Structure formats: C-alpha cells, structure tokens
C-alpha cells in the first residue's frame, strides 16, 4: 500500500472506494482499530453483509479476538507487518474459520501511521477439503492395511522397484530390502505362479496389457502365501517405462478356498464311498439320496429306494420304536406316538447308535449309524440324513476282544495277576478286574491315580517303591521288583511288579504299563525254601542249566568266602579249580541230559576254589530242581578237609600197619622158616640121636656099640654145625647196627676174595671178570659183603662144570631207583630151579650129590643180604650156568 499526501482526503476516498470494490477481503482501520472501509468480500467472508460496521471497533465486531492478536495489532500500528498463511479463527459461535492474513499499517504521511490495512482470506473450505483428503487417505491406508493391499511400482528404465510397507510385510522382507526385477520374480513359487508372473510382465511390456492374477509366493521366511497381483502400464513417450499396481495378500481366502475344495472333495468322496452308506430323507420321510455305499450295504439299488416313504424296509421295528422313544426323551417330547418327522421342527437331532440293518436278501448285520437333522437356512428341519457303516468286522473284533478279555481275566485269576496302565501326564491309572481283587477293592472304584496304588503299599516298602518308580522314569526302563501291600481288607500280600515305559516323540515318559502279580504264596514258599536252604548243614549252591549260580546259602558264603550277591549269575566255575573245569563242563552236560539225584564225581577227589584262592577237598551231592525258570541243579557241598586229614591219617596208619604187617609177615616167615629149620634141621638129628640111643640101649654087642657111638659123634657134629649156623644166622638177623656200615669199594672186596680163593682159582683155571664202572662202591657191612662175595664166587667154582673152565662175571649197576644191583654170573653146573628153586636159599638144602654141598652158604648169604635190606634171586639153566642177582635197596 502506498501513501500520498497531495490530497489526503481525496486519497482516502479513493482508497475507500478501492477497498470497497476489492475482490478480496480487505478492511481499513484507524489507529483506534475502528473500521474506515471494508470490501464486500470482507463482509461476505465474515457474514456481515447486512451490518454497518464502518466506525465500529474491530474488537467490537470480533469480540472473540484474543489478547495475543490484539498485541500483534499494536505492533503493526507501530509499523510491523504481520502475515499468516493459515490459522484457525475460533469464532464466538464456536465454529472454526480457517483464514490467512496480511496486516500492515497505512501511512497518513511520511512516518505517520493512519491505521491498519487488513487483508484476509477465508480458506476454511480449502482446509476442510484438505482434511477430508487426508482422512480419506488414512481410511484408504487403513483399508489397505486391513485388506493387506500394498502398492508397487517398477521403473523399467532403471530396474528399480518400489514396494509399499504392506508388500514388504507380505513378502516378509525388511524395510531396507531393495527389490529388483529378477529377485522380485523369485518370490513367485516355481511352476505355474512364476510362469504366470513372467507371462504377465511380458504381455504388459509388449502389448501394454494390464493383468489381474492370483499367484502363489514363497516369502523371504519360506512361508507359502497367495497374492492377488494387479498391474498396468503407464506409457511415456510412446514406450512402456513404468509398471505399477497392487499386491493383495489373499492367503486366508485362498487357503480357505483350498480347504473348502478339499472338504468338498472329501465329502464327495465320502458320499461316493462304497463302504459308508448315506441315506437322506425329506421331512416326510421320503428317501431322497441313497448312495453307492448304501446300495452295497443293503443290496438295494438307489432307483429302488429313492422315493420310498420311511426306510422301514431295512430297519427293525423294535429298534425304530426304541430310537423314537430315546429321541423323544432327548428332545423333551412326549414319547407316546412320537414321530421325529412330524414332531420335530427345529430341534437339533444328532443321534449315533448301533442299528441292525436288514439286507434285501433278508440277512441282517450290525451297523453304526449317525442320524442328523437337515436344516434349511431358517433352521427348520428339512429332513434327516443317516450315515452308516457296517460294523460286522468291528463287532467280530469286539466279540473276540471280549472273549480274549474274559480269557485274560481267567488267566489273571489263575495266575493271581492283574495289569495296570498309568498315564503319567494326567496321573490317570487303570486296573484290570483281577488287580482290584488282588488289592481287595470293588471294581467300581474310579478316579484311580498313582496315589491310590501307593496308599496300599506297605509303610515299610513305600520308600523302595518310590525309588523304583523314580528310577523307571529316569532310566526309561522298568525294573521288576516286589513289595508288600496291605489290601483294603487288611491282608498282607507280596506283589511283583513288571512293566514297560512308553515315551512320546520327544522321549518323555507319558505312560507306564505293566503287571502286578500276587506272589505271596510264592514268597512264602521261597521263604520256606530259603529256610530249608539255610538250615541245611551243608553249603548249598543252586545253579541253572547255563551253569550260572542262582542261589547260595549262608553256609556256602562261609565256605567259599563270597557274599551271595557277588556270586549271583556268576559261572559256577568260579568255585572250581582251573584244572577241573574241562571235566566239569562235560559232567554238567551229562547231568542236565539225565538229571537225577546222585553224588558228583563218584570215586574222584573233588576240590573247590575259595575266594582267597585256597583249595579245599569237598564232597558234592547233586539234585535236580524242576522250577518255573527251568531245570536247576542243587549242589550240597560238604567240606571234607577233616575227613581227608582223618583219611590221610588212616591211610598212613594203614600203610604203617601194612609195613608193620609186612615186616611181621616177613618176620613170621623168617620165624616160620626158623621154625621149619629148627623142626627139620634140629628135629632130624635129634630123632637120629633118639633112634641111635634106642639102638644103643638094646645093643649088647660091644663092637656094634662102638659103631653106634661113632654114629652118635656124626650126629652130634652135624647138630653142632647146624646149631652154629643157626646161631650165626640169628646173629645176622639181630644185627641192626648202622654203625657197621661203611663205604666199600667193590674192587677191594673182589681183590680180597680172590686172595682167599687163590688156590681154587689157580687150580680150576677160573677166569673172573668184573665191571664196577657203573657203580664202584656201596655203603654196607664189610664183613657181610666179603662173606657174600666169598660164598657166591666159591660156589661158582665149587659147582663148576667139568667140561669147561669156570668163567665168572661180576657186574655192579646203579638202577634208576637208586638201588645197587650186583650180578654174579657163572658157566657152572646150573640148578634145576623148577625143581629146587623153592629151597635154593634154605638151610642144609643141597641140589647136587656134591660131597662138599652142605646147604649153608646160600642160606647165610641170603640172611646177610636180607639183613642189609636187600634181596637175592637166581636164574639158572642146568649145565649152562647160574646168575645170582643181588638187589640192595
């Protein structure tokens, strides 16, 4: 606004006219904020057309103007210019008027402000339109959000794709994900969807054809979704350089559609099923549908049945009456004369029960049929549909199951056994009939839990039961165990539990199933058996057919030094010394092949191996035990160490006695021999003396008496000689003096003998050879040995053959047993041993008519050898020679 001072009044008028005629809202105010002039537009904008406002205060006209604006006006009156593009102007009537303004001072003259010029504009309608647009956009955005619609744009020139927030959510990509043509295509599922997407793009690019498709995508997170893809081309400068459109997530709808299609297919399949009979009627009971399954079940064709009133033809009357009665009660109707077709209008009927259907051929079969009311859109009953299956097989299985259950019950009764199931998750327990009976309670007891069972456990066994169940749950393995229970009737019983653990896919225990057997009697029997076993005086070991120890008593623990637990299920060979194991295996097989009570290893010495490795002599009695676990063998083992010691002592005593007896026999023999010698060799001369004496007494002739006396002398000499020999022999026999023993060299003895016999040797040209290389000396009695050499060599020369020169071979050998053997071999006359062998070494026994033969030498030789603990024997052939063999022990 410009000011002019050439004619202020005129200028003021012009200004007023200008203002009044201005097409916009302008008001001219003085320094007192009184209106000087306003435009028509001002009056219109502020709805003051019919008001006279010139001269009135601006604040009077607009009392709603606040102090803040008034302050701004003051500043303008001082020269400031105040403009605003838009601001709400809350009017006195409460309405909001959106306005813009330009307020500035007008000058009367240079530097002198005449008032204010206000230029305003009512932009309320613009503002409202803008707000409406924003609101619509918000609604649209929210709708898109709800409808899962997102927008996209593809700039063909720079291959840049814009995806809205919703699209990013649909594709499950992050906000910073930058799609391009190739990668965005990859979201479409391989196959039909991707092919369709590619085709749509090609067609759009070539022909500019828009598209509207339903496509399946795989999101960045691998989820399958369905989208509706709408797109069109925006050509620019004659070519398609922008493609834009929307994607809508239609997964829910699509999946529902798929599910619906599937359900429809399934229903169709069910209706077409040949094993499920489906029959529907209208509200009058006329059969409307009769599917293939119904045809197969009943033997009627659909054409025969459709149109029939009431399906009485294949139902039994009694069952229909019962059904009607039940339905009447369930729908709270009067059962008398009730008819479900006529008496039910909108009641829900959904009845499943077993029916007996009658086939066309008259035969009947059990079915399970569900009858449902068919309702129209108003909820009124339109008829009924019956879905029926033939349950003959199920019935058969049920009957079989019932039969087996009955058998199981009988079996459980016989075996005093019951079975149980424990749903460990819900803590629901099921018992078999006989288990109730074992626990002494009525079968009707429901709501069984683990605690029900646990309440029967004997107080002293509760801890062990808990341990076992905890262990079963931890190890996922049920260990069989026994415990006591106090039944509901107060009886004390022992039960054995066996079971299995059932786990889910995650390996968590969900169920335990098992058996519970009343083993009270068994336990009693076991106790009795245990008692018997423990009271047995012997160690008892019970072994199974595999040779594993099953049970031992205390005596056995004591005998072998093992605690029973350590030996349980160990091989019985643990108790057998290694050298006996092979034979034991064979014997064991024999026993199990022919089990009978018998003594083990009869006539053999048996030994057991103790834990400390010590062996002990034992005696074993075996008995077969026929048990449920098969054939066992009970071995009663007796430690016979004491008996063995006693036996050893007895044997030793027997040996000693035998030795003594032998000695006594020998002495007796010697005594007998002596007695014989005495009787024969002494009685003979004595009887001769008697005979001579008798003759002498009768003799009267002196000359004869002299002869007789000479005979006396002979006899007496003979008797003296015999007595001397016997005395010598007695001396030898009684000499038991080891002091006379010394180491004697055979050569020295032979040498001395040769010296004594030198005359005879020379005279007979005897050849004496000796070989003492094998054994050169002996510990013996020198005098006896010299006598033996002298006698045997002397005899060899005395009884030499006249046909040949005597050859005598003497040899000593040391035998393996340590005995020294001396052999004297000659080539003399020899002795007929068959005839004289028995008296070869007897006193006064001669075998030759040799004048020097006295029968003393060999007698004394044998006596001497015997006294040295040796013996002498001879082999001989007449006229070939004799060999004497002396064995010195």
């Amino acid at each position: 606004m410009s000011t002019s001072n050439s004619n202020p009044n005129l200028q003021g008028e012009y200004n007023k006219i200008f203002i009044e005629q201005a097409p916009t809202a302008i008001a001219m105010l003085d320094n007192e904020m009184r209106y000087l002039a306003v435009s028509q537009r001002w009056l219109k904008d502020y709805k003051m057309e019919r008001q006279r406002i010139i001269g009135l205060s601006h604040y009077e006209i607009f009392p709603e103007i606040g102090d803040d604006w008034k302050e701004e006006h003051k500043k303008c009156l001082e020269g400031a210019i105040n403009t605003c593009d838009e601001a709400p102007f809350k009017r006195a009537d409460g309405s909001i008027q959106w306005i813009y303004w330009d307020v500035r001072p007008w000058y009367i003259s240079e530097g002198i402000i005449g008032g204010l010029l206000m230029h305003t504009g009512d932009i309320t309608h613009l503002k409202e339109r803008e707000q409406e647009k924003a609101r619509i956009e918000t609604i649209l955005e929210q709708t898109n959000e709800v409808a899962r619609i997102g927008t996209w744009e593809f700039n063909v020139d720079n291959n840049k794709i814009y995806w809205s927030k919703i699209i990013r959510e649909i594709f499950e990509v992050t906000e910073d994900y930058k799609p391009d043509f190739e990668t965005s295509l990859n979201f479409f599922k391989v196959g039909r969807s991707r092919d369709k997407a590619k085709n749509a793009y090609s067609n759009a690019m070539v022909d500019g054809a828009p598209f509207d498709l339903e496509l399946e995508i795989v999101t960045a997170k691998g989820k399958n979704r369905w989208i509706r893809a709408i797109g069109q081309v925006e050509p620019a400068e004659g070519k398609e350089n922008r493609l834009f459109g929307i994607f809508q997530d239609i997964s829910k709808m699509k999946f529902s559609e798929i599910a619906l299609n599937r359900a429809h297919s399934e229903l169709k399949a069910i209706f077409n099923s040949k094993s499920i009979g489906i029959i529907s009627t209208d509200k009058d009971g006329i059969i409307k549908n009769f599917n293939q399954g119904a045809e197969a079940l009943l033997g009627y064709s659909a054409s025969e049945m459709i149109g029939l009133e009431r399906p009485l033809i294949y139902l039994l009357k009694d069952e229909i009456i019962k059904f009607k009665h039940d339905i009447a009660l369930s729908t709270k109707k009067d059962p008398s004369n009730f008819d479900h077709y006529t008496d039910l209008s909108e009641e829900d009927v959904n009845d499943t029960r077993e029916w007996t259907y009658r086939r066309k051929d008259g035969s009947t079969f059990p079915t399970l049929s569900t009858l449902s009311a068919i309702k129209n859109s108003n909820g009124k009953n339109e008829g009924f549909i019956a879905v029926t299956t033939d349950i003959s097989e199920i019935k058969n299985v049920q009957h079989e199951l019932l039969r087996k259950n009955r058998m199981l019950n009988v079996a459980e009764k016989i075996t005093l056994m019951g079975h149980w199931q424990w749903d460990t998750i819900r803590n629901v327990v099921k018992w078999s009939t006989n288990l109730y009976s074992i626990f002494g309670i009525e079968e009707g007891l429901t709501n069984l839990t683990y605690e029900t069972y646990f309440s029967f456990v004997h107080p002293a066994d509760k801890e062990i039961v808990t341990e076992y169940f905890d262990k079963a749950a931890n190890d996922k393995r049920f260990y069989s165990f026994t415990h006591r229970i106090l039944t509901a009737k107060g009886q004390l019983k022992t039960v054995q539990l066996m079971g299995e653990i059932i786990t889910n896919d995650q390996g968590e225990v969900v169920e335990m199933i098992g058996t519970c057997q009343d083993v009270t009697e068994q336990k009693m029997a076991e106790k009795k058996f245990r008692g018997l076993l423990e009271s047995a005086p012997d160690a008892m070991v019970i072994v199974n057919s595999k040779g594993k120890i099953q049970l031992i008593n205390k005596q056995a623990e004591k005998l072998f030094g093992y605690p029973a637990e350590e030996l349980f299920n160990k091989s019985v060979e643990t108790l057998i010394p290694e050298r006996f194991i092979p034979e034991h295996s064979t014997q064991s097989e024999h026993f199990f092949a022919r089990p009978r009570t018998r003594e083990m290893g009869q006539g053999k010495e048996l030994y057991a191996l103790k834990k400390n490795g010590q062996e002990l002599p034992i005696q074993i009695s075996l008995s077969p035990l026929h048990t449920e676990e098969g054939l066992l063998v009970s071995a009663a083992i007796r430690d016979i160490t004491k008996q063995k010691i006693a036996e050893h002592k007895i044997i030793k005593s027997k040996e000693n006695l035998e030795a003594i007896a032998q000695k006594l026999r020998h002495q007796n023999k010697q005594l007998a021999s002596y007695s014989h010698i005495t009787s024969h060799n002494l009685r003979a001369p004595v009887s001769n003396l008697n005979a001579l004496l008798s003759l002498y007494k009768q003799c009267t002739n002196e000359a004869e008496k002299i002869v007789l006396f000479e005979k006396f002398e002979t006899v007496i000499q003979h008797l003296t000689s015999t007595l001397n020999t016997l005395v010598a022999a007695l001396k030898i026999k009684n000499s038991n003096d080891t002091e006379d023993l010394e180491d004697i060299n055979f050569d020295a003895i032979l040498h001395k003998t040769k010296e004594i016999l030198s005359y005879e040797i020379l005279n007979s040209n005897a050849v004496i050879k000796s070989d003492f290389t094998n054994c050169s000396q002996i510990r013996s009695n020198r005098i006896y040995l010299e006598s033996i050499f002298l006698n045997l060599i002397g005899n060899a020369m005395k009884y030499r053959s006249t046909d040949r020169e005597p050859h005598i071979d003497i040899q000593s050998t040391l035998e393996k047993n340590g005995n020294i053997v001396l052999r004297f071999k000659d080539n003399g006359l020899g002795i007929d041993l068959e005839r004289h062998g028995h008296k070869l070494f007897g006193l006064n026994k001669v075998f030759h008519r040799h004048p020097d033969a006295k029968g003393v030498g060999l007698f004394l030789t044998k006596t001497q050898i015997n006294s040295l603990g040796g013996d002498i024997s001879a082999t001989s052939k007449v006229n070939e020679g004799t060999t004497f063999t002396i064995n010195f022990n």
Partner: protein
Amino acid sequence: MMSTTIKICIVDDDEIYRFTIIKILESLQLPTKTTTFSDGEQALDFISDHLDQDYELPDVIFLDIDMPVMDGFQFMDEYEKIRSRVGKNITIFMVSSSLDPVDIERAKNIGAITDYLVKPLVSVQLRTILEELIQ
C-alpha cells in the same frame, strides 16, 4: 597077600636115619629085604628100571621129603607119571622130621601116599606097618 619077604625101600639122604631104620628092621626079625636110596631120583630111576620086574620092586617105600636132587614130593609127581606101568601096588609112607602142617596136608592129599609118618620111626610102629602088609 604079599610074598613072604617084604621088600622095603628107604629113600632118605640122612645116612644115620638109613642106618637106624635098617637096624630097627633087623631087630624086628621079619622077612624083609631093605634097599636104600639117598635121594628121590635114585629111587625113581630104580623103579623105572624095574617096572615089569615086580620081584625087584619094593612093597613099601619110606620116603623122606627133604632130599637133594629130587625131594619126596617131586618123586611122587614123577612116580604118578609111571604108576600105571608099575608092576605092583607099592605102599608109600611119607616120612619127615617136619611137623609143618603144610607138608603134612600136602602129603595126605597125594592119593598114592598111605600115611605121613614123623621121624623118628620106632620099632613098634614099623612092626605094625609091616605086619599089616604081610597080612
């Protein structure tokens, strides 16, 4: 009935015994003829040599057990072998100073032995034997 002269055979290695028996037999004054042998073999040889000559064969033999070369039992074994061929039935007495019951039993078990006599034989004993033989 025997021939009037009884042929007696003494088989014994004991010279004194043979002497005393001959003397006792002489004192009996019975019709006897005595032959002596100092061992069984000699006696057996004699019998074998005179099997058919019964007049040479003894009627009675007093046979000692314990003798060199061939003892009384060995003699009996050998005699058994030729007995069937011996021309007469010879009465044999086993005579010994042994009181050994084994010897006595053994002798008595030999069928051809009439009796076992224990030395010394006295005149009464010999007379009885010889008189029985004569009858």
